[in-house]
C-alpha cells in the first residue's frame, strides 16, 4: 500500500482556496440579504420551495457549502454533519435518516481555478457553463433558477468586470 501525499499548493492556490472558502461561508448570508434589494434574486428565491437545499462543491479541495431555503425565503447554512450520507446529493431520493438534510441540487466545480474565476468575476457563470467548468445533479428547473439567482448575485458585485460587460454583438433583453 502506498501513501499518496497531497499535491503542493502554490501561494496563489492557497489564497484562491481561502477566498472561495470565505465566499462559500458568506453565500447564505449574501442571498438572504440581497433578496431584499434585488427583485431578480427574490423572484428566483420564490421559485424554490421552502426546504429546498443546494450544495456547491469544488472538486479536489474538500470545499463544500450546503444551503437550505427557509420558509421565510432566507437561506441558512447546513452543517456537513447534518447532511444525509446514505443517499447521493441531488438524486432526489429520501434518506432513511428522517432528521438528516437531503440535498436537492448539486453544482460541482471541476477545479479550484474555475471556482475562483467564477467567484471573483473573472468568468461569468454562463461562460463557466459554456466551458463545462462544473457538473450538476438534480432537477433541471430548479437548477436553472439557481443559475439565474447566482448570476444576478455575482453581477451585483462584479458587473464592472470585463466578463460581465455585454459584448458588442449581443444586446441582452433582460
Amino acid at each position, binding site marked *: 500500500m502506498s501513501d499518496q501525499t497531497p499535491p503542493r499548493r502554490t501561494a496563489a492556490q492557497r489564497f484562491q482556496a481561502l477566498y472561495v472558502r470565505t465566499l462559500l461561508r458568506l453565500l447564505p448570508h449574501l442571498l438572504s440579504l440581497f433578496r431584499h434589494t434585488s427583485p431578480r434574486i427574490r423572484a428566483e428565491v420564490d421559485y424554490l420551495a421552502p426546504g429546498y437545499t443546494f450544495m456547491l462543491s469544488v472538486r479536489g479541495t474538500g470545499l463544500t457549502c450546503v444551503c437550505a431555503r427557509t420558509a421565510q425565503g432566507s437561506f441558512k447554512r447546513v452543517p456537513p454533519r447534518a447532511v444525509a450520507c446514505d443517499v447521493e446529493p441531488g438524486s432526489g431520493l429520501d434518506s432513511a435518516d428522517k432528521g438528516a438534510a437531503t440535498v436537492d441540487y448539486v453544482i460541482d466545480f471541476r477545479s479550484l481555478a474555475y471556482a475562483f474565476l467564477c467567484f471573483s468575476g473573472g468568468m461569468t457563470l*454562463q461562460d463557466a457553463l459554456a*466551458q*463545462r467548468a462544473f457538473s*450538476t445533479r438534480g*432537477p433541471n428547473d430548479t*437548477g436553472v433558477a439557481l443559475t439565474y439567482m447566482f448570476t444576478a448575485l455575482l453581477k451585483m458585485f462584479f458587473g464592472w468586470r470585463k466578463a460581465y460587460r455585454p459584448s458588442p*454583438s449581443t444586446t441582452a433583453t433582460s
Partner: protein
Amino acid sequence: MKAFEFACPTKIIAGAHALDKLPDELADRGVEHPLVMTDAGLVKLGVAAKLTDVLDAAGVAYDLFDQVPPDSSMDVVNEVARLYAERGCDGFVAIGGGSVIDTTKGAAASLACEGVDFATLQGSEILHADLPPFVAVPTTAGTGSEVTLVAVVADTHKHAKLSFTSYKLVPHAAILDPALTSSLPPKLTATTGMDALTHAIEAYTSIQKNPVSDAFAVKAIELIAQNLPRACAQGDDADARANLALASLLAGAAFSNAMVGVVHALGHSLGGLCHIPHGQAMMMLLPHCVRFNLYHGVHAGVYGELLAHLAPNRAAELGPAAMPAERDLAFCDELFALNERYHRDYGVPLKLSELGVEHDQLAAVAKQARYDGAALYNEVEITLEDALEILEATY
C-alpha cells in the same frame, strides 16, 4: 479561443443496406441476446420487421419491446429496464425516432447504475458507468438522438419534459439506412427535417458553440437545404433520404456538444404541457424565435453567416457587399418561406391554435420554458415576457 469539449464516439454505419451489418456490429460487441426497442406504429408499417428479419436471418435471438409511446415517460423507461433484466438481455437495439432511442438511453443508464430510477439521474455528467452495448437505428431524420448525449423523457405526473445529459448516454453505434425512412410521409419528413435544421441553427448560436460543432452544424444545414425538399417530394429518393439522415446525425453531433436554446426551451414546454410533437413545435417556433432575437439584437450577424448554406441563391442575389443585417433578415425570411412551402404543399400546421393549444395555456408554457434546461444555453436569459411574446406570435 474559449475552452470547449467535443465528443462523438459513436461508430457510424451509413448508406444503402447498412442494416445488413447489424449482426456483425452486435457480434463485435459480444451481444448474443439484444432487447429490440421500437414502437407499435413501426411494427404496423413493417419498418421494425426490416430489422428483425436481419436478426432472424443471422440467427440472433432477441426480445422485442414494441410499446414505446410517442411521448415516452419515466414509467416506460423503468419498465424496459425491468424487462431487460428479467429476460437476461445483453445489449440494446433501438429502431425508431427520438422517443424510442431516448427511452432506450434511459433504460440503459438505469441498468448501468444497478437499476436505479432514471429520474434520479437528472443533471449533467452524473453517469459514470458505461451503458450496455447499444446500437441505434433511426427511422426519422430529425432528432439526431443516435449520436447525442441527451435523453428527453416526459414526467407525466408533472407534465414536463425532463432532459438528461451525459457523455455516457451516447449510443455505441448508429446505423443509417435510407430504406428505413423511405416510407415516411412528406409531412413527417418536413417536420423532422426542420427539427434537424433547428438543432443545427441553435448549436451554431448556443453559448457552448465551438469550432468543431460549428463545422458539423454548417454541413448539416447545407445537406438539409439540398435534400429536404427532394425527400418530401419523392420519398423513395434514396440519395436524398441518405443525405437527410446524415444531416440529422451531423446536427445531432453539433448540438450534443454545443446544446440548444430558446426554440427548444419553448418546444419542450409545449411538448410537456400541450403534447405538441417535438418536430412540429420546432418548425413552428424557429422562424419566430430568430425574428425575435434579431429584433432584440441577439445573434446579430451570426444568423447571416448561415445564409449561404441555407439559401445559396439568396446569398448570391445579395452579393458579397451586403451588410450583415441584410443577411440576417434574409436568413429569417428564408425560414418563414420554408415553413410556408411545407404548409402549402403538405399541410403542415404553422400556428399553435391549429394544434388545439388554448390561449390561456401560454402563460404556463412560458413559465416552464424559462426554467427548461435548454434555457441556460441561450445567449440571453429568457424572461416570461420574451417567451410569451414568441408564443403569441406563433399562436
